C-alpha cells in the first residue's frame, strides 16, 4: 500500500473530523460525535498502517527524519485528542486538536515534502529510541490538548469552572514528558556515558517540563482561566522550540 495515500486518507479524515466537531458544536446535534470519532479512528488506523509500512521499508521505526517527525506528532495529537474527546465531549477542543493534526501532516506533505527513509544512524538503533520518541511525542500531544482546552475554556464559564481538567492534563503531560526525558537520559548514559549534557534540546525539554510543573503548583492556589492559557501557551511555545527551533537553528546533537 502506498505510504502517501495513507497520509492523504489521514489528513482528509482529520479535516472532516474537525469540521464535524465544529458543526456538532454549532448545531448541538450530538449524534454527530460518533461520526467524528469514527473519522478520527480511521485517520489513526491509516497513520498506524503508514508507520508499519514505512517501518518495513526503512527497517526501523519512522521517527527519525524531518518528514517523519511532524507526521508522528500529528498521530500523537490525534490519539490524545480522541482519548480526551471520549472522556469529555468538548467539540471545540476536538476541532482544535484535529486542526493541529491537519496542519502538521500538511507541513510534512506540502512544506517538507515526502522523502523515502534514509539509512538509520547506528546510534539510533537502540531499544530506547522508540520509547523515548513515542512517549515524548504523546506528551507533546497532551500539551496541545491542554492548550486547546484552555483557549476554549476562556470563553466558556462552565468549562473554566471544571478546574481539575487542566491540572490533570498538565500532570499527564508532566508524567509523559518526564518519562520521555528519563528514558532519554538512560539512553544517553548507556550510549555516551553521560546522562545529561545540557544539549539545547534536552534543556528546552526540561524547560517545557518546568513550566508545566510551575503551573501545577500555581493551580493549587489560583484557577483563573487566563493563567491556564498563559501556562499552556508558554509550554506550547517551549515545546515548539524544542521540536522545531532546535532543527532550524541547527543547535546541539539532537537536530535532524
Amino acid at each position: 500500500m502506498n505510504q502517501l495515500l495513507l497520509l492523504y486518507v489521514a489528513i482528509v479524515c482529520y479535516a472532516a473530523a474537525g469540521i464535524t466537531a465544529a458543526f456538532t458544536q454549532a448545531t448541538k446535534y450530538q449524534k454527530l460525535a460518533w461520526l467524528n470519532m469514527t473519522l478520527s479512528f480511521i485517520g489513526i488506523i491509516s497513520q498506524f498502517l503508514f508507520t508499519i509500512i514505512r517501518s518495513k521499508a526503512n527497517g526501523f521505526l519512522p521517527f527519525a527524519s524531518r518528514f517523519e517527525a511532524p507526521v508522528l506528532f500529528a498521530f500523537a495529537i490525534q490519539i490524545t485528542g480522541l482519548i480526551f474527546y471520549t472522556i469529555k465531549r468538548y467539540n471545540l477542543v476536538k476541532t482544535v486538536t484535529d486542526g493541529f493534526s491537519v496542519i502538521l501532516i500538511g507541513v510534512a506533505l506540502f512544506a517538507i515534502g515526502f522523502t523515502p527513509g534514509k539509512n538509520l544512524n547506528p546510534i539510533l538503533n537502540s531499544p530506547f529510541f522508540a520509547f523515548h520518541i513515542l512517549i515524548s511525542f504523546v506528551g507533546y500531544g497532551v500539551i496541545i490538548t491542554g492548550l486547546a482546552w484552555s483557549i476554549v475554556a476562556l470563553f466558556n464559564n462552565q468549562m473554566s469552572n471544571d478546574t481539575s481538567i487542566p491540572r490533570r492534563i498538565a500532570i499527564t503531560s508532566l508524567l509523559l514528558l518526564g518519562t520521555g526525558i528519563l528514558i532519554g537520559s538512560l539512553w544517553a548514559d548507556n550510549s555516551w556515558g553521560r546522562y545529561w549534557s545540557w544539549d539545547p534540546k534536552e534543556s528546552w525539554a526540561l524547560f517545557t517540563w518546568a513550566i508545566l510543573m510551575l503551573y501545577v503548583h500555581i493551580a493549587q492556589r489560583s484557577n483563573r482561566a487566563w493563567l491556564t492559557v498563559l501556562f499552556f501557551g508558554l509550554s506550547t511555545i517551549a515545546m515548539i522550540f524544542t521540536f522545531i527551533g532546535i532543527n532550524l537553528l541547527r543547535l546541539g546533537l539532537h537536530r535532524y
Partner: protein
Amino acid sequence: MRKYAKIVIHFGLLIGLIGVWLNQSQKTSGYLFLELAGGTKNFFLSKNFQSINEIPFSLRLDSIRTNQQKGFEPAPIVWLQISSNNQNSVQKLTYNQPLYHQGWQMLLSNLVEPGFPLDYELSSDGQTFSLLHNQHLVLPNYKKIWSYGYDSEMKRINLLIGDRSEWLGIGDTLRFDKSEIVLQSINFALHQGVILLVKDIRLRFIIFVGFGLMLVGLIPVLFTKKKL
C-alpha cells in the same frame, strides 16, 4: 492518598538531586591505554593526569575488528578480556556502546595506530606534567593547556594556552605569564591499541531511582479531582 503522593513526589525529587550531587562530587574517571601486544591493566590515569586510580578487575585488549553499517563509515569493535575473581570473559566494546562491569563503565575514546603520539611530558616551574594527545589539563596557575595537533615530519606538537597557539619540538620552551613550559618528551604507541574512557558509575542509579520515584508519585494524582 494525595498526601502520600505529595510526599513521594518531593522525596523522589530530593533523592534525584542528591544522586546528581553525589555523582558530580564523587565522580572518578580517566583514561586507559591498552595495546594489542600488551598485558593486563587494572589502573587508569585520572582525568587531570595527576594520579593513577585502580579498578577492581583487569583488562586486556584481545582484538580489534571493524563494524560496517550501511551508509556509514566503518566503526571499530574492540574485544576486551576482563579478569576478575579468577574468571575471564571476553566482551565487545564499540562507539556508543559502552561496556559495563562491576559498576564501571568503559567507553571507546580513540583507536590508536603505531606511531600515534600517546602523551607528552611537560615541565613548568620545576614541576612535571603528563598531557594526553588531544586533551587538556589545568596548570597550577589555573591556565588551561590544550594539545591538539602533532606534526610528524617536524616531530613537534601544537599547544594552546589561552588564545596562544604554539608549535613545540622536544626541548623547546613556551613562555607565558612569567612562566615557562618545556616539552620534555613525546611517547608514541608501539602497537595498535585503544584509549578507553573509564568511569565509576556505581552511584548513577540513585539519580534514576529518585526521578523515577518522582514520576511514580504523579500517577495517583492523575486519578483525583481534588487538589494536592
